[in-house]
């Protein structure tokens, strides 16, 4: 093994270096200049994101523990853009925190550590690496959720998250041990050859599956979602709903389509049931939410249900549509959370009622929000429509007509509550609409990226074609 083969871990190494640099900066930079760390972190991560798109070989390391291929590489790039956008959107909030509580660097360190965990998770070649990655991606988020310690809700969110996460990963690890017991190996490549549908293996698989189901917040493993989103800082809620969920859905797809393919006759009906439950529960709960963060929490649960539709196909078309959908979902949800973040940072208001009359006072923000919600609802011609359209096409082409019908019913329900927000912004006058405010440069950039993403991903087709090509040979 040559030193240069470590370059396969380029993303991980560079992110680790950024974390270390930030720790040093935290120590070296005097207190009154602390806010410069914000710009430093953004700069580093911006470079990291840009460099991340350079081509990378397809290979594996450490005897198969760590692997990378074009699809994984591409998806890390997508995650990077997502996190970068999120940092831009959170910059003002972080700065506020730095000034008032002298805490801010931790935000970046913890967030990057979690992202590092996700890299390892989606690059994992065996269950051990996978589990370590999953843990690394989860634990820092608990700290982040409790970041605003002076707020009671924030602490509550942290506790609820860590307890739920501990339960989920415990169960998941238990499942992994069973898989090891029946297959005699933890390497994906070995397991796929020996896997068969005996009861102990299935038990192991289902237990293992709950770990990821927890992260994607599938019903009934979703209960933590709304409370944590509501209590946690918006940036973190956004991270959980966008980056964390996206990465988990991605790796779940890779695992199902490759390693766990022999169990397809089991997981296909299982996903069917979970998809229906998740879509309906998510949507019905979303109908009644007043708080924007809770509202988005349930909306993102419902969206996870849609993702399952693509996962059930197990085909190249399915892979491509799922990755495409997740990518679009990341941008759309980031846009929605970004607007909530902007308003909350300036005014502290988070309820749907506060948004009444927003179009009159802040037309641009309202338009971004409208675009994001249209994309989430799947209204043409924005990206979300194509994402859903392809997803449903993939599911229908495998013969899941009833499921697609149920999904369409759910799209209709979701349209109702997305339009509630739009009505509040555009139609309602409101007694005391939020006064006009200017966003800072970072926030504007952060929103701009999402808007470009929503528009371009839908209309610029070569991207989908590219993803489609990457999906070849993944299953």
């Amino acid at each position: 093994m040559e030193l240069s083969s470590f370059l396969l871990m380029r993303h991980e190494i560079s992110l680790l270096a950024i974390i270390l640099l930030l720790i040093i900066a935290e120590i070296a930079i005097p207190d009154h200049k602390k806010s410069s760390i914000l710009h430093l972190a953004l700069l580093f991560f911006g470079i990291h994101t840009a460099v991340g798109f350079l081509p990378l070989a397809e290979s594996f390391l450490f005897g198969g523990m760590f692997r990378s291929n074009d699809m994984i590489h591409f998806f890390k790039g997508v995650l990077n853009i997502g996190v970068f956008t999120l940092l831009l959107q959170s910059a003002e909030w972080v700065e506020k925190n730095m000034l008032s509580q002298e805490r801010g660097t931790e935000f970046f360190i913890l967030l990057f550590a979690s992202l590092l965990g996700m890299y390892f998770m989606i690059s994992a070649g065996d269950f051990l690496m996978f589990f370590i990655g999953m843990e690394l991606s989860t634990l820092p988020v608990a700290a982040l959720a409790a970041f605003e310690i002076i707020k009671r809700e924030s602490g509550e969110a942290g506790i609820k998250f860590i307890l739920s996460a501990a339960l989920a990963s415990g169960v998941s690890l238990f499942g992994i041990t069973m898989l090891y017991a029946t297959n005699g190996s933890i390497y994906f490549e070995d397991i796929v050859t020996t896997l068969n549908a005996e009861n102990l293996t299935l038990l192991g698989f289902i237990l293992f599956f709950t770990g990821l189901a927890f992260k994607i917040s599938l019903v009934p493993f979703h209960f933590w979602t709304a409370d944590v989103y509501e209590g946690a800082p918006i940036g973190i809620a956004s991270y959980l709903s966008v980056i964390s969920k996206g990465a988990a859905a991605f790796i779940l797809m890779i695992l199902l389509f490759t390693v766990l393919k022999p169990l397809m006759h089991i997981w296909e009906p299982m996903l069917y049931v979970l998809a229906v439950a998740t879509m309906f529960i998510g949507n019905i709960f979303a109908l009644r939410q007043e708080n924007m963060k809770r509202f988005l929490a349930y909306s993102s649960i419902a969206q996870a249900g849609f993702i399952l539709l693509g996962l059930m196909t197990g085909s190249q078309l399915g892979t491509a549509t799922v990755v495409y959908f997740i990518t679009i979902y990341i941008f759309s949800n980031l846009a929605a959370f970004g607007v909530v973040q902007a308003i909350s940072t300036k005014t502290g208001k988070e309820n749907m009622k506060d948004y009444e009359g927003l179009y009159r006072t802040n037309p641009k923000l309202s338009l971004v929000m409208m675009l994001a919600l249209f994309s989430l609802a799947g209204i043409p011609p924005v990206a979300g429509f194509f994402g859903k359209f392809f997803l449903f096409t993939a599911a229908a082409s495998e013969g899941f007509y009833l499921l697609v019908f149920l999904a369409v019913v759910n799209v209709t329900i979701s349209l109702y509550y997305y339009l509630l927000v739009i009505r509040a912004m555009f139609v309602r006058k409101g007694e005391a609409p939020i006064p006009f405010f200017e966003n800072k440069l970072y926030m504007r950039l952060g929103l701009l990226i999402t808007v470009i993403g929503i528009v371009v991903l839908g209309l610029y087709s070569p991207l989908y074609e590219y993803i489609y090509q990457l999906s070849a040979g993944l299953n």
Partner: protein
Amino acid sequence: MNLINLLLIPAIPLAVFLILGIFSHKIKPAASGVIGVAGLATSTLLSYYTAWQYFFVSGKVNGVFQTFVEKTVWIRFTETLHIDMGVLVDPISVMMLIVVSTVSLMVHIYSRGYMKGDDGYTRFFAYLSLFTFSMYGLVLATNLFQIYIFWELVGVSSFLLIGFYYTKTSAIAAAKKAFIVTRFADFGFLIGIFIIGFYTNTFDFQLLNDPQGPAILTWASTSFMGLSVITWALILIFIGGAGKSAMFPLHIWLPDAMEGPTPVSALIHAATMVVAGVYLVARFFPMFYMVEDGFVLQIVTYVGAFSALFAAVIAITQTDIKRVLAFSTMSQLGYMMMALGVSGLEGYEGVGYMASMFHLFTHAMFKALLFLGAGSVIHAVHSNLLQEMGGLRKFMPVTHFTFLIAALAIAGIPPLAGFWSKDEILVAAYENSRFIYGVGVFVAGLTAFYMFRLYFGIFWGKDRQYKHTPHESPASMTIPLIVLAVLTVTAGFVPFSELVTADKAGFEAHLNLPLAAIAVAVGALGIFLAWIFYKKENDLAFRFATAFGSLYKWTSHKFYFDEIYLFVARNIFFKNVAAPIAKFDKKIVDGTMEGIGNQTVVLSRKIKGWQSGKVQDYAFGFMGGLVVLILVFIYIFNN
């Protein structure tokens, strides 16, 4: 072919539309006119350059014009069925680029004078740019779906422009009528597209027209009610084309569309959009010709011939000068359709195709000229009605002279453009069917008659008591007239038979002297009769009208087609179909939906308790769900 050039041609009008649309209240009217004209002038130059490149430099390989296609997959349904976006360059698309650019540029320049002082000046230019963009897109489309997208876009821009004076009730009604009637036709078009996509697995023009392609090779394999499904699809597509090209019986929107500003009528409802239907048939010509041995072309021929005759007869009795021109347009479009219908595919047999495209080209020039001339007249006397005009030749010499040239051209007098193209159409018809030829000649005579009725009525006869003395229009309006007049004189000498033919190889065209002589004689007869009737004011016309009392009444009411449609729509469709459906919708569909909605809300209230906020409850849910999954999928599914 230079792709950037090609893409810029539609991109510039789009950019102009966006700029004028977004900053409409910030841009001064004068500036918006300049922006519009400058943008389109650039596109026009690029179009001319493309045409020159294609026809005279790089288009021809081994004596055959090649088809250049640049495209990218936009939406993929399956491996073979996908919607592409791209540009397609072949003789007819390049010819259409020239037509659209030339007429649109002239109309842009003309509008700066015509629309001066209008409140919606900037909006007008924005719409014109939108229309021009859509028309370019339609012309350059590479596949059925792309052409459909732009097809609808030109429909929308036409709707916007007909209803431009949106405070006028009649304009709004006309806009709606145009939109709804063409919508019906487009619905047929859309179904045709779906059938084609389903049975041939492609939307691509080249594949569909390929004699070895999936459509033409396998059309006979699936049949429906005695005809191949592909034939049905072509019929439906032709219905779409007939709607846009105002073919009988879908023509009723075109006369009303004259409510729009006159430059719009010249651009959209005379020269460009209305020929889209003809263009569509030409685009699919190999398929029309080969599927079911040209059965659909028979339909095209008879619909075209009948429309030509029908409209020409109506045009004689109309008194609104724009409506006369509108029916004349419909009649000439029928001519083009008829010529396509009688055409063959290879070599000289394709003379009808060539003639149709040729006539499309020359007609665009002289009909735009007629409309712009009429606009100039309307501008001067502030009325559309023939009886309020007369003796205008003294006041408006330029308008008078250019209008005369255009009228002679449409009457088929040599050596003007209309003579050449009309002659080719009659030759093609003669070689296919004597009956069709007879109709063609008769229509040619009628055309000359009604056109000179119009001419004499406007420019000769006695002066009316004009409130303001009419005066010649400003230079911005007369210059386009002069340019188009020059084109009307010269366009006939373009060697179409070498450039635009069905097999793209070209053939030797020759003047068929006897046929040409007959056509000219008939045209001259028509003019002569109009001279007797209308040169000097006399009661001859009136006496004829009373002699043919009922016929005259029928004709002047356009054979009561509007009334028939209205009756069918109101008394039959609304009462017996729409009303019950509306009831069903309100009571049952809405009721069910509202019920579901209410139940959903009730349900969501009931299950709200599940989210208790207690972590131990959540863990219980988590473990409970897990146990259920295990029980179901291990003990039920795996056994």
